[in-house]
């Protein structure tokens, strides 16, 4: 060291590298700020209009009343909040085990050729428009559920959660699949060399090592489920009542927002309430994300 910098061109190159490195960093920071800005704008958009709700409606009514009847000035949003929680919970109950199993199937068990076919096909499911899923739900799933449940209408939480499960399946399973595939082989070797079988290796070593990625897949799938509208609206029944069974037409935050937001006057309390519901939706999903993260942290400490 301690030598003078090399020839002129080399110095230039170094300066250029350093400069591009800095520039790149700035671009990255800028992009992150931009993402945050979009986030902020969406928040402001919802909150600015949303808070106007409370000029006419008490917090208590909005959050604790189950009576949503805006034509008669009743603005209780509890039904939708509970509905969203129930629907998300139910969907995750179906989707997580199936998706993780599919991820294990893809990453650990299938022969290479099948994997090469299955991965794009799973991704393909994401590209099918929600209305197609909704339509299939309406024309195939619901008649079938009606037959097995004996209800006159089988729209409701079960139908919606099944449709959502199918919709989030590719998201959760593909991202988990990548997370599992990214686990270094040396961990598998170590486990197999100790005489453990595949079940033990996968459940005790591979899945724990991929836990972070799987959690994150679950979060993305969950947020997709929470925010999905077009398909849910076709199979949930859109009736502002608390569901007393899985087959009772009901409504969730998203379905209610999408059904009504373009059908009410811009400056009405009703409209404000719908924006507020959008904000609540975001709050719920953030709470759920925090919950999932905490569960995950509790699960393991060494990753």
């Amino acid at each position, binding site marked *: 060291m301690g030598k003078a910098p090399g020839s002129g061109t080399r110095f230039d190159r170094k300066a250029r590298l350093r400069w591009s490195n800095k520039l790149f960093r700035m671009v990255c920071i800028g992009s992150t700020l931009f993402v945050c800005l979009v986030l902020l704008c969406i928040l402001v958009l919802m909150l600015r209009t949303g808070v106007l709700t409370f000029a006419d409606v008490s917090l208590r009514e909005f959050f604790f009343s189950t009576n949503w009847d805006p034509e008669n000035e009743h603005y209780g949003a509890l039904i939708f909040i509970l509905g969203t929680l129930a629907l998300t919970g139910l969907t995750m109950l179906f989707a997580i085990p199936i998706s993780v199993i599919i991820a294990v199937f893809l990453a650990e068990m299938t022969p290479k050729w099948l994997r090469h076919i299955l991965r794009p096909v799973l991704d393909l499911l994401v590209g099918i428009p929600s209305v197609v899923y909704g339509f299939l739900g309406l024309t195939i799933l619901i008649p079938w559920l009606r037959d097995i449940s004996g209800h006159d209408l089988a729209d409701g939480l079960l139908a919606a959660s099944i449709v959502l499960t199918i919709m989030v399946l590719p998201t959760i399973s593909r991202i988990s699949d990548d997370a599992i595939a990214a686990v270094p082989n*040396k961990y598998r070797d170590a*486990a197999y*060399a*100790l*005489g*453990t*079988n595949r079940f033990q290796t996968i459940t005790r070593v591979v899945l724990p090592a991929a836990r972070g990625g799987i959690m994150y897949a679950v979060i993305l799938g969950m947020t997709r489920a929470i925010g999905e509208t077009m398909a849910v609206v076709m199979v949930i029944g859109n009736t502002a009542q608390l569901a007393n069974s899985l087959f009772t037409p009901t409504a969730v935050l998203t379905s209610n927002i999408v059904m009504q937001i373009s059908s009410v006057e811009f400056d009405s309390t009703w409209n404000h309430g719908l924006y507020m519901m959008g904000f609540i939706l975001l709050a719920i999903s953030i709470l759920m994300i925090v919950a999932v993260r905490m569960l995950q942290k509790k699960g393991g*400490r060494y990753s």
Partner: protein
Amino acid sequence: MSTPGGTIVQPIIEINKLNLYYGQFQALKDVSIEIPERAITAFIGPSGCGKSTLLRTLNRMNDRIPGTRIEGKVAVGGTDIYSGEVHVETIRKKIGMVFQQPNPFPKSIYENVAFGPKQHGIHSKKKLDEIVEQSLRSAVLWDEVKDNLKRSALSLSGGQQQRLCIARALAVEPDILLMDEATASLDPVSTFKIEELAHELKERYTIVMVTHNMQQAARVSQQTVFFLDGEVVEYSATQDMFAEPVDSRTQDYISGRFG
């Protein structure tokens, strides 16, 4: 190729005309050796000659490398381990392995060592504690880590990781232990202790070790196998080989005796 001398006891592993291919590349050529029970066998030979490869065929870890093809027979205790009847997990449980590169799980030190016993059905906390302590002591790591067994194994130093992997393999109590340069990054004192351990273990276990260290091979092994380019050049009782190697290449290799 010479045959082992007279001191060798009954063979527990018999390898017969073994050929191994990685795709097009032939890594093992017509390997036929016998490994005696309750003794230490050393594999020596230049880097890339196929020592690790052969070691991995003994507990079928090569199954996991795609594109690997095997011909010939490997019998352990009389059973062909590549036949359909055997269960690969049982083989691996009975034939423990320490890899050339330390590969601790991303778990705590304790969990690493307790992993094997737990998977094989030991769940009593007390029993596990005992096994963990015993194994770590055998691998000369106990004193360094006993204060914080909950620490992540990944934060250990290179040599500590290597000893942890030895402890992990010991915890399963295998009948045969395969060690791939298990002391390569250990200091002389730890190396000595691991060698002592091997010496002790050989009363009950069969040990196969890969080493680059001629002195180590001479010191601890009863039988030595010398490889070159995937072929067995010579194998015999260690003292014979180091005293008067038959093949001139063996002579050349071990006389560069400076490891």
